[in-house]
Every structure is written in structure tokens, then in C-alpha cells.
């Protein structure tokens, strides 16, 4: 086991551990912090796969902008107290069964997808670099790229419609 593989397993343990922390912790602030750690760990995975651009964007957009916004909302709304609402027992049982079924299906789906090559792709393949990504985006994928501008424009108009004072 060389150092990159060690790094891979370390990042994996961190990612899964912090992901578990998100759902198990009673305090929403801890959940958000766990989510940030998960994002960082996944960014580490991206770097191991030689996808620098994705790693940086993941940190800037998700860990940087969105999670800080999340944290602010939770702090401003003062949700940090653990307020466990009493849930219906049957609903909990049904939820557990449904979740387990989904888990089973996903395991079945993923059981044939073993990793045939290396776990990490250090120094090989350049698809994740900014240059080749940009070239793909403006040649092969230019249609969806341009069309998504309509999506963002409509979201902006929506923000004005919802947020502006009447």
C-alpha cells in the first residue's frame, strides 16, 4: 500500500464518518459542520482522480458559499437547540423499511461495478484539467451549456419576484 492509496482510504473514512455525523447529530450546527468536512474529503478524492477543477469548484461553491449561507441561516433562526419533534411511530417504521429497501436496491445495482483499474489516477488522464474541460464545454457540450443560461435567468427573475417589496 503506497502513500496515495493510504490517502484514499483516509479520505474515504473521513467522508463516510462525517456523512454519518450529518444524519446522527442532534444539533443542526454540527450537521452543517459535518457536511463541510464531507465536501472537503470528497474534494480530496477529486484531486486523487486528477480532477483539479472539480475539486476547487466543489470547495468554492459548496463548502465556501452554500454551506456558509446554511450556517448563517441556522444561527440566525436560532435552530441550534435540539428540538426533537415527536414523530409518529408507524411513520418511523415505514421510513426505516423504505430506506432499507432503497439501500438494498443500490447495493444490488453497485455490486457488479468493482473497480477494475487503480483506485486513484494520479498523473494520468487530463480530462479533469481546466483547459480540456473548457474545450469540451464550448465544443461538444455548448448546447446544454448555453441553454442552462435560461435556467439561471429564470431563477434570477424568480428571486426578484419573491424577494422584492410589494
Amino acid at each position, binding site marked *: 500500500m503506497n502513500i496515495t492509496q493510504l490517502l484514499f482510504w483516509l479520505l474515504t473514512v473521513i467522508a463516510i464518518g462525517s456523512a454519518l455525523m450529518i444524519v446522527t447529530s442532534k444539533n443542526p450546527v454540527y450537521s452543517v459542520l459535518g457536511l463541510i468536512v464531507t465536501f472537503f474529503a470528497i474534494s480530496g478524492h477529486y484531486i486523487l482522480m486528477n480532477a483539479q477543477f472539480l475539486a476547487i469548484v466543489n470547495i468554492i461553491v459548496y463548502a465556501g458559499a452554500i454551506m456558509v449561507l446554511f450556517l448563517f441561516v441556522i444561527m440566525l433562526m436560532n435552530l441550534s437547540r435540539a428540538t426533537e419533534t415527536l414523530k409518529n411511530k408507524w411513520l418511523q417504521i415505514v421510513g426505516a423499511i423504505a430506506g432499507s429497501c432503497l439501500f438494498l436496491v443500490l447495493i444490488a445495482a453497485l455490486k457488479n461495478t468493482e473497480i477494475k483499474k487503480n483506485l486513484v489516477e494520479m498523473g494520468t488522464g487530463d480530462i479533469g484539467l481546466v483547459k480540456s474541460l473548457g474545450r469540451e464545454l464550448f465544443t461538444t457540450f455548448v448546447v446544454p451549456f448555453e*441553454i442552462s443560461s435560461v435556467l439561471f435567468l429564470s431563477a434570477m427573475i424568480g428571486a426578484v419576484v419573491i424577494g422584492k417589496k410589494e
Partner: protein
Amino acid sequence: MNAVLLSGLLGVVMMFASFLFRTKAPVRILAILGMAVLLVANVLDTKGIHFFHVNTTGFLSFTGYALFFNTIVIACTLIFFLISSKDMQKVGNHYAEYFALIFFILTGIFLVTAFTNLLILFIGIEIISIPLYILTGSAKKDLKSNEAALKYFLMGAFSTGVMLMGIALIYGATGTFDITKMNIAGLLKSNLLTAGMLMLLFSMCFKVSIAPFHFWTPDVYDGAPNVFTSFMATIVKVGIFVGFLHLFYTAFDAIALQWKIWMAVLAALTLLVGNITAVFQQSVKRMLAYSSISQAGFMLFALVAMNETAHEGLLLYAIAYCLATIGVFGIISKMTDYSFDGFNGLAGHQPLVALCVAIFMLSLAGIPLSAGFLAKFYMLKAVIQAGGYMWLVIFGVLMAAVSAYYYFRVIQAMYFKEGPNHFSGISAFEKCVLVGICVLIVFTGLFPNIIFGWMYF
């Protein structure tokens, strides 16, 4: 491609109109004119005259079916503008922005009907969904509207997540996003593909409110402002349905054995839940929300049948269902009381309006000589032709009979009961539009061949 680009541009134009015009009338006229231009552009596209020459690099393919369906969608939206655009003023101050959002939604519908790549499907569905969340919550002072928007947003975002997961799994199994190049037949035993296909199926079912993914529908349709309920229950729903059919017809036909029986079960369950619950409603608006669920069950017959008749039937269903429901909602948004009692004695106060409502209800129930009858007939015929699902056909006929009960309840209230006037008045022009819709419904019911002739021309 004409319609996609033009509708996006018209959305931007409507955005600028919001600060260029001080009054509301020019905004409305501009929107109606824009929709008419869009209609002409799309018809020209069907005839082979393209304004824009865009190399879509295999992401979009505008077949004759998709273009013809787009024409129907634009024509229905034009009718919707003619009858309901005045009532949009009552919703809030952002009159021009509502039109801009509707133009953007149309862009999304055109993408969803013509995609050949799952990326475009995803972007199209999102372009449809996000403006709809906003339109649902546009009545900001109304608590019910706020609740509906939040509910719709949370559920919709979750189902979009499921859809993305499904697309990712399908990519993992096939190695491509292109639905024409997937080579599904070679992957019959792939669990990865099956799981991805099921996730895609569930999220699409959510978007068109198929039971048991329908729980958001009554609350959202009931809470949203009347004019926008009218739009999203009709045009948006049939638009996504065509995308749904296109996706499963093109991509997953080779593994039909895996999902067809479930599609039939979903259709039966949707018909049962929609119709039985609609019977117990007290508000006409909420009844129409459940009726839209049950009509979605009928439209799902097209996905069970998967043949030429099913494609034609879905077109007819789109026409029949959109016209009738837009008409009814056009009238409901002029009523002060939406309950069944509010319709009491409407025939005495407004004979013409009551007659129109009666025709819409008859068409929705599927009474012969109306477009609704023919649409249901085509759906049942398609399933019989496909063979093997006779129980579904019988069940569908039974449920259509149940649906007659709650549609006729409105007619009974209008003609055989007495009550005070809850109708706030209607202009002569809007009366003409209503009569025009009725004529279209009866005309489509009598001469469907003219529509199909136009489609294949």
C-alpha cells in the same frame, strides 16, 4: 429550434417590458402578440422554414411529432393568455415577470419534447420546475400560496435529486447520456441500468403526479393562484408527459418487460386514487386537482401501450384536457366562491357561461361528441392494440364512469339548484374566447382526422 430560441428571447423581452411600460395593458398585449409570433414561428418550423441554423451537436432532434405537439402547447398557451391574462393582475405587482416566467417554462417544454440526451432532459425539467415554484408562491400575502410553494419546492427538489441519481446510474451502466446510442438490449441483466431506470421512472411520475407520488398535487394546485394552477395543471403536465413517453419509447423499449407491468399498475392506482378522492371534495378547485390526477392516469395508458395509436392519443388527450381545464379555470378565477355551492344557480345568472362550463365538464368526463371522449377512446384503443392488459382497459372504463359523478355534480349545481350570484362578471371578448374553446372541443370531437391530417402533412 425556432420556438426554443424565440421563447427564450421573448422571456427576456417581457423582462424589459416590466420597466419600459408603466401600465399593464401594453404588457398584456405584448405577451399575447409574442405568443402569436411564437405560434407562427413554430408552424413555419414544421413546414421546413428555419429562422436559426444551429448545430445542436446531437443534443436535440425536432421530429414532426415534437413540433406538432409544440404547436398544440403554444396554441393552448395563447388561449390561456386570452382568457386569463387579465386575472393575472390580481395576483401581484410583477405582472410582466409572470409572463417572462411562462415564456421560459415553454422553452423548457420544447426541450423536454425534443431531447435526445439525458442532460437536456434534466435541464428542461429544471427550466420547467423552477419558474413553477415561483409562480406557485407569487401571491405573497396568501399563506396558502406560500405553503404550496414551499411544499412544491421541497418535494420537487427531492425528486430532481432522485432523477439525477438515476441519470448517473444509467450513465454508469451504458457509458453515454445519448438515449439513441445506449444499446440497452445488450444490458438486459444489468442491475445498475434497472435501478437507474426505476429512479428516472419515479421522478418523472412525481412531476406528472402519478399515484403514489401525487401527494403534493392537491395542496399545490389548491394553494397556487387560480391562473397559474390552470397553466401548470394543463400545459406543463402534458408537456412533461410527452417527454416521459419520448424517454421510455426511445431509450427503454428494449427492457419493456421490466417496467411495463409496473406502468400498468401505476396507471390503475392513479385512476383509483384520483377518482375516488375527487368524489369527496367540496371545492371545485380541489376537485379539479384530483381530476387532473385521474386524467394523468389515463395519459399513462400511452406509456403502457407504446404504439402509434398511443402517440396520437396523447396528442388528442393534450388538446382535449388542456382546452377544457383552461376554460374551467378561466371561469373559476372569476368566481368569488370555489365550492360546489358557489356554482348553484349559475345557469340563471349567466346562461352562456354555464353552458360553456357544462360543455367543459362533459368533455372532461368523456361524453361522446366531445374531444374528451375521443381522447379516452384512443387511449383505450391503444392499450387493446398493444394487447395483454385487458384488465386495465376495463378498469379504466369503470373509473371513467366514476368520474362522471363529480363532473356532473357541477352541472347539476348550475342548472337544478338555486343560489346567489358568485360570478364577478366577464367581458364580451372573454365570452367570445370561451365560446371559441367550446367550438374547438366539439370540432375536435367530431373531426379528429383533420388534426391528424395536419400532423402528417
